[in-house]
């Protein structure tokens, strides 16, 4: 609405505007500072961090910390760098996102266009599932993964992420399809179109935006997850966030801050890129996750 600005612009005066702009820029610096610190210090040799100023640019530029963080740094017992864990995360995220998005779309379709008695209760129970503290399911989840023979494996993590993402993906698609004109679906039904035909030919072609929102939301959440990753992974299924934490908080050896920073940026890169490329959809997902109904 930006109301007062238009008419009051003259009244507000140059002085006030200067203050507003300085405040906004100051906050921009505050938000950028940690990223800047990580970036410049990931390009310095270790000595320069210890003796030099954390906020100054590198005097001696080096990509060695990045190389080390990616492929040679000691993580746990083996000097593999973050690379294998990065790949673990990709192999975990892709199927988990795809499965939870497809199921969420179908659920949203059923819950809005094929309503039945008790559908609101079903939706309510699925929605509430979004907010449980995951600590409450850790112990039985570990058990069931063991029973299914998926303990400590990537498929096990995929299953867990898919299930606990269903609430949100269903919510997203339900809210989106709610606004879709029901007359179209009824008309198609009279024409003899089947359940899946209606979904594929009528709803899906106009679902582009909500699919993007859902995929981004799920990708960000699962990529950034730490709790499930640290609880249910074993040596060869550790995701990137857990590996990064192991790298940074291992108690042995010299603290290679520059490698830690490079590793942190590597771990953040995929979600940052998604955010930069499609920030609009990212924000829409956040909002949809926050403002229900």
């Amino acid at each position: 609405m930006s109301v007062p600005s238009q008419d009051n612009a003259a009244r507000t005066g140059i002085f006030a505007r200067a203050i507003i702009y300085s405040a906004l820029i100051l906050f921009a610096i505050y938000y950028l500072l940690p990223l800047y610190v990580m970036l410049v210090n990931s390009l310095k040799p270790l000595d320069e961090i210890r003796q030099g100023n954390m906020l100054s640019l590198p005097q001696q530029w080096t990509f060695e910390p990045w190389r080390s963080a990616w492929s040679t740094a000691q993580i746990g017992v083996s000097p593999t760098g973050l690379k294998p864990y990065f790949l673990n995360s990709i192999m975990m995220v892709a199927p988990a996102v795809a499965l939870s998005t497809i199921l969420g779309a179908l659920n949203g379709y059923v819950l809005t266009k094929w309503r039945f008695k008790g559908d609101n209760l079903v939706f309510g129970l699925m929605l509430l599932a979004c907010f449980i503290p995951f600590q409450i399911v850790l112990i039985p989840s570990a058990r069931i993964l063991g029973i299914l023979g998926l303990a400590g494996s990537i498929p096990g993590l995929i299953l867990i992420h898919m299930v606990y993402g269903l609430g949100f993906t269903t919510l997203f698609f339900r809210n989106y399809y709610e606004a879709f004109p029901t007359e179209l679906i009824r008309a198609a039904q009279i024409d003899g179109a089947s359940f899946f035909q209606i979904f594929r030919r009528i709803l899906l072609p106009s679902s582009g935006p909500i699919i993007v929102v859902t995929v981004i939301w799920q990708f960000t959440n699962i990529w950034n997850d730490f709790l499930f990753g640290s609880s249910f992974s074993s040596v060869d299924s550790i995701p990137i966030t857990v590996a990064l934490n192991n790298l940074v908080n291992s108690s042995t050896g010299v603290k290679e801050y520059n490698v830690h920073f490079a590793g942190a940026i590597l771990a953040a890169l995929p979600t940052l890129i998604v955010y930069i490329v499609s920030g609009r959809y990212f924000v829409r997902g956040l909002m949809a996750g926050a403002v229900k109904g």
Partner: protein
Amino acid sequence: MAMTTTAQTAAKNPRATLQDWLPKLVLAPSFALILLFVYGFILFTAVLSFTGSKLLPDFSAWVGFNNYVRLFNHPNWITSLKNLAIFSFLYIVICSVLGLGLAILLDQKIRGEGVLRPIYLYPMALSFIVTGVAWKWFLDPGIGLEHVMHLWGWESFSFRWIKDGKMAIYTIVIAAIWQSSGFVMAMFLAGLRGVDNEVIKAAQIDGASTITIYRRIIIPLMRPVFLSAFVVLAHLAIKSYDLVVAMTDGGPGTATWTPALFMQKFTFGRNEMGMGASSAIIMMIMIFSIIVPYLYSELGGGKKQ
């Protein structure tokens, strides 16, 4: 709610028997998974919290409310609750104030809003572990802020909160606010952009000042946004785990334990599964007591456009 008639329409369809069941069949696997993995598991944990399970679940060792009694007599749990109180209060209040403030400033027909907004919001795309690493070293007295100030000639500057048991929890607050306040700003900005211009024009004609318009008209209109922000932030606060692990891992000592950390350490570190389960139940009760009324009002009163 417009679609209640669809089921009947479908029933009249001649080749409808399978078509009738298909929607429910499609929904069933997801719903079954949620019932088992969420509600079944909650029940499992609830029962477990009444047993003396140690390393593994043991349902024969029934101890009644003993775990809960031990929990609330345990200094680490009390510390965790105190930290949660400090953390969530500061986190919610400062994020809301900062978010609203930034949104109002950004809403003044600012040139470059398109550049500033994404800068405020990008931390939300990061993992708490990444945020934790950045702030852990930035606030580290050895190489971070304190060191920088000394190099700049402010020799007496001291900032060692992260190493100080009394203050360490506040460093986690700082990092958490950095991560979430931009998101709250986006929520308020959306709210501000939704305010009806007519109302404000009328107030301006009546001679109300900008500050009065904000204080008396616009901010009161933001009530629903405050509520949403509160719910989102409160539930994030109660779940806070990753950030603590990355920044302090609960230290120094047990100074920055939170309920989520307590659950993890007791269940998997100290083999006190019964107590771990009871702490998880308390966490769930805390979250549900905020979320359930909120969802109920949002869904129940959902027809209020």
